[in-house]
């Protein structure tokens, strides 16, 4: 039986025990890491390219690009932008963006928090499941749908609400108005945006409320708390900062919204603090509006405006994300 004869040379050397990854694993990790880093690359490229395209305008306008609110384009004979006379300033649109987004958050946050409380602590299981599906579905609706629905269906009602607000709360400076034009106002845009951000604020709040330690909830009930006193004593102190984070996330969404605002809002290039008056603005929809008729120089200014919008939403979203995360982490 020659086959079974063990020659010393036939014994395979014991495999070296190591924690070093194999070649296949190295490749795998490399590929996956590269894929993971692509979000960094894309965000970096967005920053670089928008800054590169908007550089001329930002250099010529300086800080006035953010503080000025004139948009006058002068070109010389060959069609190039004459930077000595041309003024690009987006202050009016920035204020409009913040105004609309703030209205949206003011309307959406109470509704969303109440909804999240209902879903977390009041709803029967079947209703809860159905309602969560409905609200998730609402988050998937395209913005053009909200815009056109807002224009045709919501606008008549919202105008009526605006009139009521003016009639009964007109003494407040921001509900005051000289010219009675209620159509296509920042208020109506804010209502549409509020409807659009309700799903996201609700789902974040629900997530935060769901993390409330169960032992504290049960302790409150055991001490004889009603449902409301339990919520007041346990859930709200625990989830407060998380809800603030969710609201900021909604604010970021509302700031970047384009089509819905463009459809509903009457974009007028002036600073307007009267929320019920039919004139306002929003950086994103201004870009869409000006893009159609813009020459090459003006498009560079739009790129710069896009850069400002990008940085603004990035900052708001990052702060919101940090707040939400720190709430989730503090745990029990």
């Amino acid at each position, binding site marked *: 039986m020659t086959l079974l004869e063990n020659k010393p040379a036939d014994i395979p050397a014991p495999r070296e025990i190591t924690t070093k*990854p194999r070649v*296949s*694993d190295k490749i*795998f*990790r490399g*590929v*996956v890491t590269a*894929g*993971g880093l*692509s*979000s*960094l690359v*894309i*965000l970096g*490229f*967005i920053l670089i*390219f*928008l800054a*590169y395209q908007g550089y001329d305008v930002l250099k010529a306008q300086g800080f006035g690009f953010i503080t000025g609110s004139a948009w006058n384009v002068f070109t010389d004979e060959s069609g190039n932008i004459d930077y000595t006379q041309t003024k690009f300033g987006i202050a009016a649109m920035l204020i409009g963006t913040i105004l609309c987004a703030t209205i949206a958050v003011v309307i959406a946050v109470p*509704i*969303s928090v109440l*909804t999240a*409380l*209902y879903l977390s602590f009041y*709803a029967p299981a079947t209703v809860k499941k159905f309602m969560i599906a*409905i*609200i998730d*579905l609402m988050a*998937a*609706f*395209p*913005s*053009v*749908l*909200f815009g056109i*629905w807002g224009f045709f269906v919501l606008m008549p009602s919202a105008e009526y*609400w605006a009139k*009521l607000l003016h009639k009964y709360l007109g003494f407040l400076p921001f509900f005051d108005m000289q010219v009675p034009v209620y159509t296509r106002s920042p208020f109506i845009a804010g209502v549409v945006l509020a409807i659009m951000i*309700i799903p996201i604020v609700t789902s974040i709040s629900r997530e935060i409320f769901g993390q409330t330690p169960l032992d504290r909830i049960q302790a409150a009930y055991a001490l004889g708390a*009603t*449902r*409301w*006193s339990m919520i007041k004593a346990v859930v709200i102190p625990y989830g407060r900062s998380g809800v603030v984070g969710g609201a900021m*996330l909604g604010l970021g*969404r509302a700031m*970047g*919204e*384009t089509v819905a605002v463009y459809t509903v809002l009457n974009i007028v290039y002036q600073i307007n603090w009267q929320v019920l008056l039919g004139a306002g603005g929003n950086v994103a929809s201004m*870009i*869409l509006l000006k893009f159609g008729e813009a020459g090459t120089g003006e*498009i560079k200014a*739009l*790129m710069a405006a*896009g850069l400002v*919008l*990008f940085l603004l*939403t*990035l900052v708001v979203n*990052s702060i919101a*994300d940090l707040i939400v995360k720190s709430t989730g982490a503090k745990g029990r």
Partner: protein
Amino acid sequence: MSTVIATPKPGKPWTATPQQRLITASIYLGAVLVSFTLVAITPMKGKLAYFVVFFFSSLLIDFILSYIQRGMASAKDAIARGFVSVGMTLAVLPIFSILFEVVKRGYKGLNINLFTKDMSLTSVNDPIGNGGLIHAITGTIIMVAMALIVAMPIGILTAIYLTEIRGKFAAPIKFLVQAMSGVPSIVAGLFILSAYVYPITGALSGFAGSLALMILMIPTIARTSEEVLLLIPNDLREAGVALGGTQWRTVALVVVPAAKSGLVTALILGIARVAGETAPLVLLTGGGEKVNLNPFDGPMGSLPIYIWKCFGQGTEESIARAWSGILVLLVIVLALFISARFLSERKVAK
């Protein structure tokens, strides 16, 4: 002697007794009566007035009743319950209004031409039977498919990095994916304009549109996939490694197949996220009226652009076209969403 032990029937002492139900019903009935009388005798009018008066009167009746029965704490609880229910109603009211209005205004424009013809020979005032949106449907399918081809690997690889490798970049990447999901769609459009259209092609095309859609799709896919992969029990990974598999084999042959339906859900949600995206396509695709199957050449129509254009034209026929376009888009989004739900339900059931 045998005693028959009568087993007590399990009761549900926490549910409402018929008497309590009667009280609840009479509260609402009383509130309805109050709202009708108040609206009738005061100058208030309209649906809003009915709603507001009904809300406050039912709240008040409930408050007083709870106070008499069980004291102040219970009365406050009743008020909270009232507000929470109204918040819920206000949150879901718009969605039912949207669904109702879209069907009501959109169904008139539905006909077979919608799916066989394009708009190249149709002017704005033509009756609604003329022209259709086949160019928009093909354009949307092509652009979304091309975006998916790139976004799918990147999104899933990101999720695998976050759940399987958990390297030193995990925390910053998670942060960046979150940040990316907040990028306004118009900024994605401007970015592709500045990075691809102006320096490279100089012309608008469907491919430029799909690049922008890709940017918007990646975060949705990455975050949903991450959630799905986190649900896969660690035992599976340990079993894979214990059998001698390398990490690569464990992920490819154990973890990803186990999460398959969840990953498909992530892709579907990604598609649903971008299918109705309008702003970047307005900037990038040119929005043609003819069927164009080549994404690299010439303007390409898409459903959101079709709706956008028809809405902008403003004639009665165009608005009707816009509503039927919205109906088609809504049906697509709904179908995607329901299939995603169905897939994730099945995964839980197993």
